[in-house]
């Protein structure tokens, strides 16, 4: 009878000790993480409802920022362009990276070399890459239009100098840069599909396309889901690539939400208004992610 409280006290001491030890491990990272990420995220929700420019501090202004947003043409252009980028970039990158992964999963010679090559753009700095691509896209003398003319297109597009073609140019570079990274994720996913499933499908007389639909795609579902979520967030927040490559131009043809925030906050010093736009960006990412999780859960049940 007396052993019960003693055991409980001993367990209580163990929990206490573990908590101390556990926190001591987390602390060095957590302090930085809390101060530089958690606190700013919380502050964002306050700043977004204030009027704050270079003169004086933040003044509570309720929904005034959002009323201003509704009538801000640049904001709607930025939102539209962000959607344009997202809607084109996600399927293109998904298709390219999955196709490359399927190809590399074969026993072909040179696969290891190509895997290295395809991943390299992803870890190369955006400043250098954007500059090279701008030169490649140069309308009159650039090699891309030279190739297009050689193929028989007599009036190739003006790419980054044309407001119709600047966004496609940025999307091409974005896809080119990221496909190697997502390809690696798909390759890792393909390794988890058991080989006997293919044998079974083959015995059942399924042709290659049917096997792809019935075995490969379902087997890749978790990977595809993860890749889609990452791609979506990545597309909505696209920033440095556009900033360096086109700076939002020509005109406002490639102005995106992140750049609009930067413009308002760091160039025009309207911290409150820029925070309100940040909230919009944050909510879009949150809602899209939640919807994707919900759809994924319904499909898997």
């Amino acid at each position, binding site marked *: 009878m007396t052993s019960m409280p003693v055991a409980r006290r001993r367990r209580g001491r163990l929990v206490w000790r573990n908590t101390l030890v556990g926190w001591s491990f987390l602390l060095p990272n957590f302090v930085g993480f809390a101060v530089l990420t958690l606190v700013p995220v919380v502050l964002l929700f306050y700043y977004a409802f204030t009027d704050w420019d270079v003169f004086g501090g933040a003044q509570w202004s309720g929904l005034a920022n959002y009323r201003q947003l509704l009538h801000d043409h640049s904001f709607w252009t930025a939102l539209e362009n962000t959607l344009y980028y997202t809607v084109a970039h996600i399927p293109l990158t998904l298709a390219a990276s999955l196709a490359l992964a399927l190809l590399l999963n074969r026993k072909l010679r040179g696969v290891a070399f190509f895997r290295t090559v395809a991943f390299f753009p992803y870890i190369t700095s955006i400043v250098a890459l954007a500059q090279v691509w701008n030169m490649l896209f140069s309308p009159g003398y650039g090699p891309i239009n030279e190739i297009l003319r050689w193929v028989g297109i007599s009036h190739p597009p003006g790419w980054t100098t044309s407001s119709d073609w600047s966004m496609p140019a940025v999307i091409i570079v974005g896809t080119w840069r990221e496909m190697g990274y997502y390809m690696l994720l798909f390759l890792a996913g393909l390794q988890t599909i058991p080989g006997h499933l293919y044998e079974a499908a083959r015995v059942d007389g399924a042709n290659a396309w049917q096997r792809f639909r019935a075995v490969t795609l379902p087997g890749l579902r978790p990977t595809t889901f993860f890749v889609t979520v990452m791609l979506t967030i990545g597309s909505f927040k696209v920033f440095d690539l556009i900033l360096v490559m086109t700076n939002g131009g020509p005109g406002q043809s490639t102005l995106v939400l992140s750049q609009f925030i*930067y413009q308002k906050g760091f160039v025009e010093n309207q911290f409150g208004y820029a925070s309100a736009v940040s909230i919009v960006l944050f909510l879009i990412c949150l809602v899209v992610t939640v919807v994707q999780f919900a759809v994924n859960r319904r499909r898997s049940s």
Partner: protein
Amino acid sequence: MDALLDARPSAPAGLAAPRRAGRRRSRAWRVLGYVVLAVAAAAVLLPFYWMVMSSLKTNNDIFTLPVKWVPDSVVWHNYVDIWHKSDMTTWLRNTLVLSVAVTALQVFTGSFAAYGFAKVRFPGRDVLFLAYLATIAVPWQSYMIPQFILMSKLRLSNTLWSIIALQAFGAFGVFLMKQYYESIPDELVQAARIDGMSEYGIYRRIMLPLSVPALASLTLLTFVTTWNDYLGPLLYLRSHSIWTIQIGLKSFITTYNAEYALIMTGSVLSVLPIAIIFLVGQRYFVEGIASTGLKG
């Protein structure tokens, strides 16, 4: 289709005749596979080829009709001139200092915290981890303004410390290391505890030696991310003397906007260290990416 769509190579099956037909068809697919691979490799490599080639040309030879895919004669003087015309030395030094400092801090704090998350059980641990996890869905672009105001109040902006603070405590290191530590059996840790080893001893003498591949992945990925970061330095580093290579190169491009050969030379120099690191440690890059699916 056979060769392209299946994830696994097929086992030989069936009678002799279909097998022969199948083999012929599979050879056709194989050839097609190589063609696609070659075209894709060319497309991926073209910009890098162009970058290097242009840095070895005179400025007038870069934009010509028809395009000169190979320089008439290789010109090396761009690689001498760039050091006089830009502060390349300062930029590279600053970037190196930052990358090393950030990497050291991230590897230490990340792996240390990951041990707490993976191997020590205490109340509130999982909620805390959720807070880390949730910030992945929050784009940095949406809280860069409050973060900037905070850094300014801490008097960190416009110092190299701002970039260290910005990059060193990311959640990425925690994820990568936690993932790896969880693959190490708890029994091993338990046995060490029974032997009287402290948690810090277990971390240092058992976990660290066992997680060298993951530590290598984290080191390389963090180093490269910091080296390539453009937005952080753009917001925080105003004085020219603390510029990094990315922001310096960008300003060089704006200043000398028609000196294409020099611009490409600077680009090559900014990419070269990363290329070398990547070629030496590519296994760790691939493993690091494949195991977490995230990057810093």
